[in-house]
């Protein structure tokens, strides 16, 4: 018989502390779908995703019912579309549109992989593909796009960084009536991972098996609750408590991942040990930092606590899962975290502090609304700064900023649902035009040469 306190703890975690499996994501290889032209490729892509993913929602719902743990999102990631449309890049939209329809057909909210990997150089077909992103995101609902512009091993492709600044701005302008919502589905990475289950940056790497299940766990509310019980403890004890909590959360994810893979006839890929917030109260990563002892997230001390949190989550999670991957760490999106939104509203957190935080946690500048009149070169410079942090620190960094057309600092935007809402945050007014116009490649750091 089980220890009754353990049983009731699990029930409380789900009922009161928002424990959930954030996403069950099926990675599907589209390499076998390449045909001679865009139309036939699009048809093969649609058929493949519909066939492989047809039971993902049903299976996840049954697992959720059987184990009593909500599975919030069911998603699909695919091979970067720039690869399968290399012979007809101008028509890549047709494949994107087919993927969007397939996502709708199988009942998932997002499908990731309208992506390109250009970290060491942009091929002609990739440049053409990148230019299809704004139109494609403006004319699809569920499709997500990501572009990898740098890596620790290859350096930063500044030509791609320059282009992505323009593409982010165009995407915002083409989705202007929804406050630039298209940019919420567009991530610019450095050191992108091939097995990330989280949107909008998920894609199915070409080194992956044919069909794979990756699971992203969550539970910032559970960690916050555990820390509330030890208000006087020193930081060693705080870190230990986070570790133990992360272990339990991850074990639930591992169970769901292996069972889902079995039922969906796919390989179990990885469990992504992430603390991912939602805009709901009690489901906030920033609230954990505040519980440790900050008056507001964003003040001095934020980076140190986040570093400890991120590390403790990994240590607890690694022990709990047979294979770990993805982004694995604490997410700090602004519009998707209630305490982060409140800090932004009260001027307690700046983009500069968020940038510092990205040095020690997973991912990067995420879901930040900026003024619509921000220049493309400023967006490129933001991307370059983040990519530099990722490159030098051997970690994934990303930029998902939303220049909101017609909005100024102090205005609000609401993206709806899990994407949340937030005030427009200020960016620096001094330009970086000359730097961005130079183009070229920032060479890889010396410590990346490990062979």
């Amino acid at each position, binding site marked *: 018989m089980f220890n009754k306190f353990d049983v009731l703890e699990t029930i409380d975690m789900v009922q009161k502390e928002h424990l959930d499996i954030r996403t069950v994501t099926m990675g599907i290889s589209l390499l076998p779908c390449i045909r001679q032209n865009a139309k036939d490729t699009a048809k093969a892509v649609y058929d493949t995703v519909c066939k492989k993913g047809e039971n993902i929602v049903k299976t996840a719902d049954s697992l959720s019912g059987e184990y*009593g743990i909500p599975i919030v999102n069911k998603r699909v990631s695919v091979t970067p579309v720039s690869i399968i449309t290399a012979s007809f890049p101008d028509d890549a939209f047709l494949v994107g549109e087919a993927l969007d329809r397939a996502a709708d057909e199988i009942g998932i909210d997002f499908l990731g992989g309208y992506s390109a990997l250009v970290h060491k150089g942009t091929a002609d077909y990739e440049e053409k593909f990148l230019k299809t992103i704004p139109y494609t995101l403006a004319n699809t609902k569920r499709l997500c796009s990501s572009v990898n512009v740098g890596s620790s091993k290859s350096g930063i492709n500044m030509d791609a960084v320059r282009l992505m600044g323009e593409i982010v701005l165009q995407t915002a302008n083409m989705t202007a009536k929804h406050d630039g919502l298209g940019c919420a589905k567009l991530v610019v990475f450095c050191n992108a991972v091939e097995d990330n289950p989280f949107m909008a940056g998920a894609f199915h790497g070409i080194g992956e098996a044919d069909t794979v299940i990756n699971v992203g766990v969550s539970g910032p509310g559970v960690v916050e609750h555990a820390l509330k019980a030890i208000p006087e403890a020193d930081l060693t004890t705080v870190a230990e408590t986070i570790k133990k909590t992360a272990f339990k959360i991850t074990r639930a994810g591992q169970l769901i991942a292996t069972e889902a893979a079995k039922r969906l006839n796919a390989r179990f890929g990885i469990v992504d040990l992430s603390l991912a917030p939602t805009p709901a109260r009690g489901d906030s990563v920033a609230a954990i930092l505040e519980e440790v002892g900050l008056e507001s997230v964003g003040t001095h001390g934020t980076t140190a606590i986040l570093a400890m949190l991120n590390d403790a989550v990994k240590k607890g999670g690694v022990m709990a899962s047979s294979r770990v991957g993805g982004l694995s760490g604490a997410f700090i999106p602004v519009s998707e975290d209630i305490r982060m939104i409140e800090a932004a509203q009260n001027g307690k957190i700046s983009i500069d502090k968020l940038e510092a935080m990205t040095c020690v946690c997973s991912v990067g500048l995420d879901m930040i609304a900026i003024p619509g009149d921000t220049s493309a070169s400023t967006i490129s410079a933001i991307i370059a700064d983040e990519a530099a942090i990722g490159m030098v620190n051997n970690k994934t960094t990303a930029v998902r900023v939303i220049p909101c057309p017609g909005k100024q600092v102090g205005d609000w935007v609401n993206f709806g649902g899990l994407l949340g809402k937030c005030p427009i945050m200020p960016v620096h007014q001094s330009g970086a035009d000359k730097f961005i116009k130079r183009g070229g490649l920032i060479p890889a750091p010396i410590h990346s040469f490990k062979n």
Partner: protein
Amino acid sequence: MRAVVTVTGKDKKGIIAKVSNFLAERDVNIEDISQTILGEYFAMIMLVDISKIKGELSVLAAECAKMGESIGMSIHLQHEDIFNAMHNI
């Protein structure tokens, strides 16, 4: 195959009778029961055998939750593996 049923809520008469009848009607066999009352708060945990149930486990879990609502209690039925996974190494 086994599951854990938890029944929590304000204590009142006949909870065990109602829950065990409900489970028996669905071919669920109770193997172990632990029950406590903390003040007015009732908490019961049952380990049950579900190998003979006819439909899907997720459907039975949903029925249990609904039955709980009808008697003013919170009832959860979950596959035992979730507790094994989370609380044992």
